[in-house]
């Protein structure tokens, strides 16, 4: 069963000083995910200031805007897709993720399965 772990960094008002995960923590976590044989996909996203939003209205008109910006308190900073037997195992991997600490959070979502 595949789950996506959506890694949200803390908004500026929630960040806990001195609790941010280090680069080494992320390297160690990534290595553990790879070595456990559960890695399907994963990326970390570039800074939110580089984001662009696209909407297409009923007439097919395309609207492009800069952002979205800080209306959202938590910012999606990256994701993993892992393949594990059940939600408990997925939650364990989410809890080990450095992104879950320091005021950040990891949202665990099952990947929809249209086959079965």
């Amino acid at each position, binding site marked *: *069963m595949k789950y996506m772990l959506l890694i949200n960094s803390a908004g500026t008002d929630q960040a806990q000083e001195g609790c941010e995960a280090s680069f080494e923590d992320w390297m160690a976590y990534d290595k553990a995910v790879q070595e456990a044989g559960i890695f399907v996909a994963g990326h970390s996203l570039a800074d939110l200031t580089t984001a662009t939003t696209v909407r297409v209205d009923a007439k097919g008109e395309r609207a492009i805007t800069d952002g979205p910006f800080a209306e959202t308190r938590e910012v999606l900073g990256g994701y993993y897709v892992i393949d594990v*037997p*059940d*939600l*408990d195992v997925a939650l364990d991997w989410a809890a080990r993720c450095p992104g879950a600490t320091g005021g950040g959070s990891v949202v*665990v979502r*099952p990947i929809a399965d249209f086959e*079965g």
Partner: protein
Amino acid sequence: MTGPYAENVEAVFREERGRLLAALVRRFGDLDLAEEVTSDAIEAALVRWPVDGVPPKPGAWLMTTARRRAVDRLRRDRTYASRLALLQVEADRAAPSPAGAGDELPDERLQLFFTCAHPALNADDRGALTLRCLGGLATPEVARAFLVPEATMAKRIVRAKKKIREARIPFRAPGPDELPARLPGVLQVIYSIFTEGYAASAGPDLQRLDLAEEAIRLARILRRLLPAEREVAGLLGLMLLIHARRDARTGPGGELVLLDEQDRGRWDRAMIEEGLRLVPAALAGGPPGPYGVQAAIAALHDEAADVATTDWPQIVALYDVLLALAPSPVVELNRAAAVALRDGPEAGLALLDALAGEPRLRAYAPYPMARADLLQRLGRLPEAAAAYREALDLAGTEPERAHLRRRLAAVT
């Protein structure tokens, strides 16, 4: 089918239903299928047993019948079957099935307890699902228990089952290393069913005894499944020691009667004895947990002949332990009331007034009720009346309001 035979059979089934359901969930990995064939098997038994006689191994008969129905169902519906087969492979990957299938149904209800109380489920749904799967209550009964419309409850149960299925919450009891983190969630579900029954938060009746009894029944099952867990003993003990006072808690008009005015002759002695026997098990062999400490407090009340001879210093000391384990303004409130009985109303009132800013007590009727009581004892009647009025505005049930009107009348 009616009459004593039917009632007897239904009582048997209520006990068997949870066991059967848990075993089928383990076998097929799907709650919906397990529920469907459990009901089928019980229906078949209600038809066949009165005619053919009760089989020598009723549990095995029900299990065989249910499994046959499940296999039929899976033959009819190939897509469903292939999805379940996949589920089963995954489940075995997570936790290999125990080898060997004896005659005796293995008791797999523990897994079901942990699934129904899983922290990934909506907190409101956990109690409902537990009552349905392990308490053997049908959805309309669960709806009545929580005073919500049947359609609302049906939606909640569907939502919870959908999450279990689609997010794949496993049917698995946590290992010894995870148990300390997961068990409190299961105990919380049972205790909230009990407290909803004990002091209904709304409605015409103060106590909904069926819910309280259901919670006790669930705790008894859990105690058999986890005999070494002290907090399970603590929770069962606590509920028995509180429930033993049920008949004395309401007056002839259905109004609330507080501990100090209860006729202790109407307390259920047998239930108190049973509760008292659990307290040592809850407290021995390690640092106490919050349910064990609360059971010890309830035991001191139940052992006392009246309020005057109650061991208040010991109760205050236990509240101190409880506050260190699980700090909460409600516990502070209870401690203040105990201090008032140990050191006098003035001391208790000072502690209560220090809690005035607590947001969790702002709309909590017992807080102004406790203040009113102490103000009354200090002879500060206009202030007591104001506090009783405040409590009247907040009280959720008619019996509480009846009690408060009576107290208010005495000070005005």
